[in-house]
C-alpha cells in the first residue's frame, strides 16, 4: 500500500472551553495509482483528514504511513522532506507564490525536491495550456489557469501521491471539467495516486473509489 491511515483521531478545542472531536477513528488504505474521492458535509472534517494525510498536521492518536514508512510520528523536518519529495498538494485557493512568475511557480517544488526536469516542465506547460504565459505573474491568470498551474506544480516532481482539496471548487463548470480531466490524465501518466476532497458528484464519479466522511468516521 502506498498510503495507510490507521485509526486516526483528531480533536479541536472549542473557544467555549470544551473539545470537538472531528475525526474519531478513521482508517483507509490507498494503492499506488489509485484515485479516491473524499466526500462529506461541510465541517465534517475532510480538509482536516487531508492535512493529516499530507503530514501538514499530526493526529492526536493513530498513524499515517506513506510507502511503508511512518509519516505522522516523524519530527517536523522529516515530515517537511516527505512533503517536498513525495507529495503534491493542490488547494481550492490555488495558493501560488505571488512573487515568482508562472515558469518559476511551475518548477518550484520540483526544484525544491531536487528533481527538476526541464523537458517534463515544458511538457506540463504545454499540456496545461500555460506555455504562452510562462513569464506572466500568477495573479494575471484566470482562475482556471491558476488552478492548472497549481496542478502542474504538484506534478512537476512526479510524486507518487497527490492530495487535492476541492481543486475545482472555485471554478465554473466548464473550467472544472477541463481541470479535472487534466489532473486525472496526468496523474495516470505519472502513476500517481490521487485523493480528492470534493462536494461535486461529477468529480467523485470520475474517481475509482469514493469514501464519505460523517460524524468523524468514514463510510
Amino acid at each position, binding site marked *: 500500500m502506498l498510503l495507510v491511515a490507521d485509526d486516526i483521531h483528531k480533536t479541536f478545542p472549542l473557544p467555549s472551553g470544551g473539545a470537538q472531536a472531528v475525526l474519531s477513528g478513521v482508517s483507509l488504505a490507498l494503492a499506488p495509482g489509485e484515485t479516491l474521492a473524499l466526500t462529506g458535509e461541510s465541517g465534517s472534517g475532510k*480538509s482536516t483528514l487531508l*492535512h493529516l494525510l*499530507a503530514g*501538514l*498536521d499530526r493526529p492526536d492518536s493513530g498513524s499515517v504511513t506513506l510507502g511503508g514508512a511512518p509519516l505522522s510520528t516523524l519530527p*517536523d*523536518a522529516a515530515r*517537511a*522532506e*516527505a*512533503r*517536498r*519529495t513525495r*507529495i503534491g*498538494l493542490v*488547494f*481550492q*485557493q490555488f*495558493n*501560488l*507564490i*505571488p*512573487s*515568482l512568475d508562472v515558469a*518559476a511557480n511551475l*518548477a*518550484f*517544488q520540483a*526544484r*525544491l*525536491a531536487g528533481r527538476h526536469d526541464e523537458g517534463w516542465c515544458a511538457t506540463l506547460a504545454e499540456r496545461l495550456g500555460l506555455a504562452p504565459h510562462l513569464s506572466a*505573474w500568477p*495573479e*494575471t491568470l484566470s482562475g482556471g489557469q491558476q488552478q492548472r498551474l497549481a496542478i502542474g506544480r504538484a506534478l512537476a516532481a512526479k510524486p507518487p501521491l497527490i492530495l487535492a*482539496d476541492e481543486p475545482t471548487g472555485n471554478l465554473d463548470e466548464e473550467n472544472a471539467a477541463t481541470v479535472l480531466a487534466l489532473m486525472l490524465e496526468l496523474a495516470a501518466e505519472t502513476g500517481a495516486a490521487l485523493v480528492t476532497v470534493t462536494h461535486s458528484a461529477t468529480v467523485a464519479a470520475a474517481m475509482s473509489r469514493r469514501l464519505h466522511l460523517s460524524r468523524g468516521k468514514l463510510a
Partner: protein
Amino acid sequence: MTRAALHALLSHWRRHPGQLATLLLGIAIATALFSAVQAINAEARASYAASEATLSPDAPDHLTSPAGRIPMQTFLALRAAGWQVSPVWEGETPEGLTVQGYDFLTLPMGSLPDLAPTLAQMPPSALITLPPPQWAAPESLAAAPQATPAPGLAPGLLVTTIDGAMALAPSGAITHLLVAPDAAQPLTRPPLAEVAPTLTRSRPQGGAEIARLTRSFHLNLTAFGLLSFAVGLFIAHGAIGLAFEQRRPMFRTLRALGLSTRLLAALTLAELTAFALVAGTLGLALGHVTAAALLPDVSASLRGLYGAALPGQLAFRPSWAATGLAIALAGTLAAGAGALLALARLPILASAKPRAWARASTRSLALQAAAGAALAAVGAAAVPLIGGLPGGFALLGGLLLGAALALPALLAALLAAAQHLARRPLAQWLWADARQQLPGLRLALMALLLALATNIGVGTMVSSFRLTFTGFLDQRLVSELYVTARSEDEATRLRAFLDTRPEVQATLPIWHVDVPMADQGAGELYGVADHPTYRDNWPLLSVTPGAWDRLATGDAVMINEQLARRAALGPGDTLQLAPDWQPEIVATYSDYGNPGPQAIVSVPALTRHFPDVPKLRHGIRVAPDDIPTLTAAITDDFGLPATALVPNAEIKAYSLAIFERTFAVTAALNALTLGVAALAILTAMLTLSTMRLPQIAPVWAMGTTRARLASLEALRTLALAAFTALFALPLGLALAWALLAVVNTEAFGWRLPMFLFPGQWALLFATALAAAALACFWPVLKLRRTQPATFLKTFASER
C-alpha cells in the same frame, strides 16, 4: 447608525491592543523628539531675548584693562570715588579648574544668570559663611569635591566667593570689575577717565549678537528634530496602514450595510484626530523630559562655543504645547492620508486581484528615483545660488530626501540582480519575495537610511573635528610646562632663574592684550617669540613667503581664521591694532574652539605698543623627563606655588572636555534617531507578517520547515538592512562633506578638513545589522512558532 458604525470601527483596536500601542507610540515619539528640540530652541530664544531686553538697564558693564588684570589699588580708588563696582577674581586651581570669585555683597543684578535660580534659594548669610560656597558643573565635581552641582555652568569652571577664589587660585587676579547700572551710581562720582584712566568700559555681548552667532547651532538641532519627526511618522504610517488592511473587510461590510463613504471617511478621520491628540499629549510630556535632560549639555555647548548662557531649568510654554499638538495632528493626518484615500476609493466588492498592489511597478519606482535625483540636484544648486547657511541646509535636505526617494528603486535593482544570480529555488524565492516586500518595508528602510546616513555624516564630522582639534592642540600647546608668576617682579626673577637652568631649552612669553579688531569686537593680541617652536608647529592656513621673518621684524601680523573669514581679511591686507599701528597681515592660522578674533605679533612689537602688557605667563620647553625636576626646582628653590605650574596635558584634557560636551547633544539625538528607525522596521515587519502568511504558507506546505522559513525571513531582513547601509555610506560621506565644508564654515567661522574613518563604517554596518536583527527578532520568532493550523487556515479560506 453612526454610533453603531463607530463602535464597530473601534472594536478593532480592542482586539489588537498591540497595534494601537504601536500607533500611539509612533505619534508620541515623533512629537516627543520634535518638541524636545523645539523646547530647547524656545528656551534659548527666550534667554537671548531676555538678555537683550535686560542688557541696557540691568546687565552690568565690564571694566577691563588691556593688561588683563586690575590692581587692587585701582579697585579701591574707584570705590573711594563712589563708583559702585564689584571685583571678579579669576585664576586656575592646581586641578586645572578655572575659578571665578565674585563679591556677592556688591554684585550687580543680572551678573550670574547661570546661578540665579540657585542663589535665589539661598539665604544671604550663606554667602558670607565659611567655608565659602562653591558651584561647578556636575562633571567637574571630581576636581572640586566641595562644590554644589550647578548644571548651567561650563565644565571646568568653578564659581565661588572672592575670598574662596583667592584661596583656591592665589596666582589669579582681578580680571575685570562689574559696573552697577547708572541708576545705582551716585551722580557726583568723578568720570572714569579721572579715577582709572587705563580701564575701558564695555558691554557684555548682547542677546541679539549671541542669537545671530548661535542660529546655526539651533538650526542644526531643528534639522535633527525634523528628521526624528519624519522617522516617527513612518511608524505611525505603518500602524495605520496595517489597521486599514485588517479592517478592509469591515469597511466593505459597513458600506454594503448602507454607510456612505463620506460618513465612513469622517469617522476614520475623527478616530485619527483623537489618537493624534492623545499620543501628542503623551509626546509633549516625553519631549519635555527629553529636553530637560538635554538642556545642561546644550547650555554648556553654547557657553563653550559662543559664550552664551542658558538657564539650567526648562520652562513650560503653552505656545510650545499648542504647536506640538498641531504638529502631531498634521503628522498623523499625513501618515494616514494614504489609508483615507484608499478608503474613499474602496469598492464594495472585493477586487478579483487582491495582491496586485503589492508589487511596486518598476515605473513608479523609477519615477520616484528620478524625483529623488532632481531633489538632490536642486539641493546642490542651492549652495552657489542661495549661499550661506540656508544654502547649506538646502543641500543637506536635498541630499537626504533625494537619496531616501531613490532608495527603493536602488534596492529593487539590487534584489533583482541577486535573484538573477541565485541558483537554488529557495534563494530565488527569497530575493523575489524580498522585492515583493519592498513596498511595505519601503518607508522603514528609508528611515533606516536617513538614520544611518546622519550617523555617518555627523560621526565623520565629529571625528574629523576631534582629530583636527587634538592635532591643533598639540601644535598650539607645544610647550611642555606653563608657568604663571604672581607679579611682574616675580616674573622677571623667574625668567632669570629659568635662564640658569640647564634643562630648560627655551622660555617663551605668553603675553597678550585685548584690543578691538576690524569691527569684530575685542580680540586677543598675543606676542610670540622668534623661536622654532612657532615656526615648526603653528597651524598656518595661508601664508606669504618669509612670513615668520617678517613677523620677527615687528611690522607684520598673523590672524586667526575666524577673523579672516568674518572681516574678509587675508595676507596682503592690513589690520589696525592701535591708533598708530597698522601692520600687514602675512598669514592666517586655524584657531578651533575660539569664538572670537585673535592675532599674533612679535614680542618686541607687542611690548613697544603696549608697554604695560602683563608679562606673567610663560611656556617652558623642556624634555618631558625633566619636568618633575624642574617643577620641584621652581616650587622649592624658587618658591612659586605648585598651582602656578600647569603641564600641557592638563590644558589639553580641559579643552577636550569642553569639546566632547559640545557634541554630546548631537550624539544623543543621533542614537535616538537610530533607535526610532529600528522601531520603524519592527512595526513594518509586524504589519507585513500578518499579510504575508498566505505567501509563506505554500512554501511551507511544499516541504520547507518553519525553522528554515524563519531563518530565511531573518536573512532577508538583514540583507535589506545591509543593502541600505551600503547606500547609507556614500550618502553619509556626502553629508559629512556638506556639514564640514558648508554648514560648519558658516556656523563657526572655521573650515575643518575631512577625514575618513573606515573603522566607523564597519561599526555602522554592525549597527545596521544589529538594529535589523533586533527589529526582526520577534516577527521571526513568531514565524518560527506559527502553528500549522494557522498556515492551514490560509488554504481553507480567502484571507
